[in-house]
């Protein structure tokens, strides 16, 4: 990693025996190594970054990960397919619905089934709510790292409403496990659609508030504008996807370019940046929230009554009232609960556009009820790998900007 104009930025204290040597020797001071994290508020969890500093400018940056490694891929190999959904939920815990969506779509591809229309629409609504929730946490914490405390409270106030919606639909706020193989856990309760619609209608005024809090804030603009550049070529070579890649100017969004789950029916734009600095990534995520709002509004209009699960007793347990009447339904229910759902042997890779980038699932099935191998392609893992590119030649304070604008969740990086 090269350093740029290090000489002008050196600000170290001269040692006792160098005190006389004066200013001309300052540039020859040895670089200093410091640890950022793993217990540092701006590392969003347990990320440790070893920085080599020449004065205040970064000579090299080495992220160390693995502090949250819990062997989730190994655990999934020992769970049934339905149980595995609870585990993928906990990887990127800020955006559980997109994690679930990718996993269930991959398994459904192996099974060769397609979910009913109502389930598809509700899935899209929740995936987009998930994107908004994830971007809200990113915005709040990123602004807090930059010293703007109040944005955090506003963002969490709005995220709370999304969590309320999930709680009403799935019974859980954080790890809902709402999407199931073959459909959904259940239909949304009465009044849910109205609540979601109220959220969609109010949302633009809240976004206007965030812009008002930040866009005119000289500290925020100063620290983001012209800092932490990423070129499209570097991003592609490092497997960096999502808002990071789009912030650098490449309009690659899997919802648009390789649609899944019915996204081709919706009308939305893919915001891109121009210069690839931290400010562009901020604008991309902000505008993405508005695009998500547009998708949710369209989806709510398309919601028609109907079933929310496929009617296949070998995949989805039969309805409760049938179990008490039909012997066959009872047997299917019992078999699904004791043996689990058997997935035909084969392998599949399915990548979807998560809030942080492409989240992919590579599932190898041996025909049993448990995945033989389930690899999760974590967007944060690849995006974080590019951190040294962002802080090349920057000041130590910009490392915090770089981590914030990368938008990482260590639960997913380490799995």
């Amino acid at each position, binding site marked *: 990693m090269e350093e740029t104009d290090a000489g002008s930025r050196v600000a170290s204290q001269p040692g006792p025996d160098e005190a006389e040597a004066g200013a001309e020797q300052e540039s020859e001071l040895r670089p200093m190594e410091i640890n950022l994290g793993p217990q540092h508020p701006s590392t969003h969890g347990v990320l440790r970054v070893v920085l080599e500093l020449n004065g205040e400018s970064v000579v090299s940056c080495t992220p160390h*990960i*693995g502090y949250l*490694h819990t*062997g989730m*891929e*190994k*655990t999934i190999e*020992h769970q049934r397919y339905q149980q595995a959904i609870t585990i993928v939920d906990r990887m990127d815990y800020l955006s559980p619905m997109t994690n679930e969506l990718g996993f269930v779509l991959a398994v459904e*591809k*192996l099974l060769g089934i397609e979910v009913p229309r109502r389930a598809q629409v509700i899935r899209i609504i929740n995936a987009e709510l998930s994107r908004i929730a994830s971007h809200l946490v990113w915005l709040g914490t990123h602004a807090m790292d930059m010293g703007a405390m109040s944005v955090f409270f506003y963002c969490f106030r709005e995220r709370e409403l999304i969590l309320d919606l999930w709680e009403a639909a799935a019974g859980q706020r954080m790890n809902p496990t709402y999407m199931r193989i073959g459909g959904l856990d259940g239909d949304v309760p009465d009044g849910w659609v109205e609540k979601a619609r109220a959220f969609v209608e109010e949302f633009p005024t809240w976004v206007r508030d965030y812009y008002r809090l930040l866009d005119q804030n000289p500290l925020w603009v100063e620290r983001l504008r012209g800092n932490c550049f990423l070129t499209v070529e570097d991003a*592609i*070579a*490092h*497997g*960096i996807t999502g808002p990071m890649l789009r912030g650098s100017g*490449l309009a*690659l969004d899997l919802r648009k*370019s*390789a649609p899944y789950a019915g996204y081709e029916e919706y009308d939305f734009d893919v915001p891109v940046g121009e210069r690839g600095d931290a400010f562009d990534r901020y604008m991309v995520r902000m505008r993405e929230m508005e695009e998500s709002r547009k998708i949710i509004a369209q989806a709510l209009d398309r919601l028609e009554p109907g079933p929310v699960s496929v009617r296949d007793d070998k995949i989805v347990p039969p309805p409760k009232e049938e179990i008490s009447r039909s012997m066959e339904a009872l047997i299917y229910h019992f078999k699904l609960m004791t043996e689990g759902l058997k997935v035909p042997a*084969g*392998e*599949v*890779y*399915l*990548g979807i556009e998560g809030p942080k980038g*492409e989240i*992919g699932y*590579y599932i*190898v099935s*041996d025909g049993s009820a448990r995945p*033989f*191998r389930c*690899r999760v*392609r974590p967007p944060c*893992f*690849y995006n974080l*790998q*590019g951190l040294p590119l962002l802080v090349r030649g920057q000041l130590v304070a910009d490392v915090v900007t770089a981590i914030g604008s990368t938008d990482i969740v260590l639960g997913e990086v*380490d*799995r």
Partner: protein
Amino acid sequence: MIDQAGQEAAIAAAVAAWPEGVRREEGIDMPVLIVQAPLIRPVCEELKRRGFDMLTDLTAVDWLPMGKVPRFEVVYHLFSTRGMWRVRLKAPVGEEDPVIDSLVPVWPGANWPEREVWDLFGIRFEGHPNLTRIMMPDDWEGFPLRKDYPLEGTERPAPIVRE
């Protein structure tokens, strides 16, 4: 949108260049190339030149319970950001000396995923600039994602705490 013809041309070129070492199969989601391990780097370079510019993911599968020989398979997912094509490469790797060429010279982004595969499967990547453990502690013994590694982990002595 997805440009099928370009994808076919790129894959056909890779198969034609190494008729002995590259075999094509059809997956339910994308074309699959079975590549002999020593050829992985030239095949990837060729595919990259022909449009597969992103290494989406790199991982491995341990086939021990199925009794497959060779035991491991290193799996690559390539992606073209221009044509939106995908292809899956699978390179079989033996049990006695699990080693394959590193792709870091082709895609710098292969660095961490290769370290992860080394860490969790024990497959070495020849030519990797820094092949060290990434998820597990540096002094860990064993490779947790191998199928003969117990789910509940292995017995490990308590760390010595010096006063």
